[in-house]
């Protein structure tokens, strides 16, 4: 496979940001493909619209800040922010919801803090959290049903017109509660077996969602193989969710089972593509482990005992807050010194 040939052990050249971001975009394509196969054209339209708007917003704000526009646009980071929002927003989210999310992400969360490298928070997740808080109805009622459940899947034109039309009346027949949402709200009054009757769970774990998450897992493994991200954050992230679920959520009549936590919602997208943002994540390997585990634990806490069915955005933002603190207590060993003053000896040579 041509992709693997230039991979890790002998590649010591510093890769430019633009190349890294291009790989991130490429690695997300399997997930996008799975989303399109199982949930229709919504995500693809959202991705194209979000990326176009992200680039436009980035160009406009760079011009306003008197920075070189073409130089910064070419680093592809704005495109990745748009891509992540397009992948994570509901399929039938109206155009203005995704638009507000993208503009907030680029203008407020990224450029007002000083641009690439200076933003303390993950820009895409700031945009996502803003629209999630602001428009709870639009953000919960616009999730597509899995295609296997559709009598007739809406075509490209129908999806496009429902996203960009002023009224939202047409989408009702194509949408359905997400598996996590359904489980969270029904389990209080039903048994697990009754809850799982709902078609949103499909035949295996969660109709469509399981394949989307597996595709993001595959893309994420590609990124680790290419050494674009390290394994620490995703592994700690998933382990955090899994350990919490094993410790507290063993009764399926009370809490969503582990496989639903791992393969429904934005878990894999969050673990491999969102939490690993090099700017807003912790720096040292030990710090990354703490950071990732914190996100995983918070996701489980909010999903199980909070008000929201999914919590990747809030958890990532909360741990972004903690990053300066984590970095302060997890300094990597400097070259020439024996071991760090704190931390695992010999394990984090930086």
């Amino acid at each position: 496979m041509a992709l693997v040939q230039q991979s890790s052990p002998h590649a010591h050249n510093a890769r430019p940001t633009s190349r890294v971001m291009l790989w991130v975009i490429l690695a997300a394509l399997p997930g996008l493909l799975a989303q399109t196969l199982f949930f229709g054209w919504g995500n693809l339209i959202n991705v194209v619209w979000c990326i176009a708007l992200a680039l436009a917003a980035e160009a406009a704000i760079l011009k306003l800040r008197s920075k070189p526009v073409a130089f910064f646009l070419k680093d592809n980071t704005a495109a990745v922010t748009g891509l992540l929002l397009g992948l994570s927003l509901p399929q039938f989210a109206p155009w203005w919801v995704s638009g507000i999310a993208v503009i907030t992400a680029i203008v407020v969360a990224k450029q007002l803090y000083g641009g690439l490298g200076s933003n303390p928070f993950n820009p895409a997740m700031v945009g996502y959290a803003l629209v999630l808080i602001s428009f709870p109805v639009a953000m919960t009622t616009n999730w597509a049903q899995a295609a296997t459940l559709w009598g007739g899947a809406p075509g490209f034109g129908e999806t496009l017109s429902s996203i960009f039309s002023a009224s939202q009346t047409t989408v009702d027949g194509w949408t359905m509660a997400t598996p996590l949402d359904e489980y969270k709200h029904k389990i209080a009054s039903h048994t697990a077996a009754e809850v799982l009757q709902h078609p949103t769970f499909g035949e295996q774990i969660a109709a469509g969602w399981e394949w989307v998450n597996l595709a993001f897992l595959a893309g994420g493994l590609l990124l680790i193989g290419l050494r674009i991200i390290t394994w620490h954050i995703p592994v700690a992230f998933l382990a955090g969710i899994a350990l919490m679920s094993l410790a507290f959520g063993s009764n399926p009549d009370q809490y969503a089972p582990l496989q639903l936590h791992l393969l429904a919602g934005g878990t894999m997208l969050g673990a491999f593509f969102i939490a690993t943002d090099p700017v807003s994540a912790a720096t040292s390997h030990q710090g990354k482990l703490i950071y990732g585990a914190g996100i995983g634990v918070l996701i489980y806490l909010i999903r199980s005992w909070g008000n929201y069915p999914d919590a990747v955005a809030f958890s990532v933002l909360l741990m972004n807050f903690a990053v300066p603190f984590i970095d302060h207590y997890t300094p990597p060993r400097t070259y020439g010194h024996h071991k760090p003053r704190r931390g695992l000896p010999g394990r984090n040579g930086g």
Partner: protein
Amino acid sequence: MATKTNGEIIKDGLWHNNPALVQVLGLCPLLAVTSTVVNAIGLGIATLLVLIGSNLSVSVIRNFVSESVRLPAFVMIIASFVTCAELLMQAFTYELYEILGIFIPLIVTNCAILGRADAFASKNPPLPAILDGAMMGLGFLAVLVVLGGMRELLGQGTLFADMHLLLGPMAADWVVRPFDQYPDMLFMVLPPGAFVGLGLLIALKNGIDNYLSERRKAAEPVAATAGSKRVRVTGNIS
């Protein structure tokens, strides 16, 4: 303390030393009640009246109260005026009084008021003190109204809704709805929207100040430096 001219007092209160945008005082009511214009005006006017009254009283007694007990005395005066304002609002704008709730009594803790009493009124004669209180209050009111309008427009898609709570039946149909079917943007209604809005207003004010000072610099004649020589540098500065 060098006495300020009336013009300086007016400019300071409204712009250069604006209690909300420059001193960043009184944030609690500023952030909590500015979800609509009518709330903002109601609280802004109450604060304005308290500020004028307390500045006047503090200025009158400034030579009779010793340094060591001045703060308790100021707080007593402010609390009395706040109680007056609260009773007046309860009498004449009862519904608004209910909406603003705890934030009317909390005017006592508005640092802007105590700040003006201590920093200005206790060192100046009554008339400048009244003017300072009025201008600071107006500056605070203006920021409240702008922020309230911004949040009301973005949050609920209306402007001047429920004005009759303050101004009586004649204002009942003042409400403006620029958009059809506006989807409420809860973020702007909730307190985080106020933080972001205030941040943007402060940025706007600083931006205007920078622009003005640069334009003033550009307008000044540069003849003084045209032919001068810098130390240890040969040649003229162009």
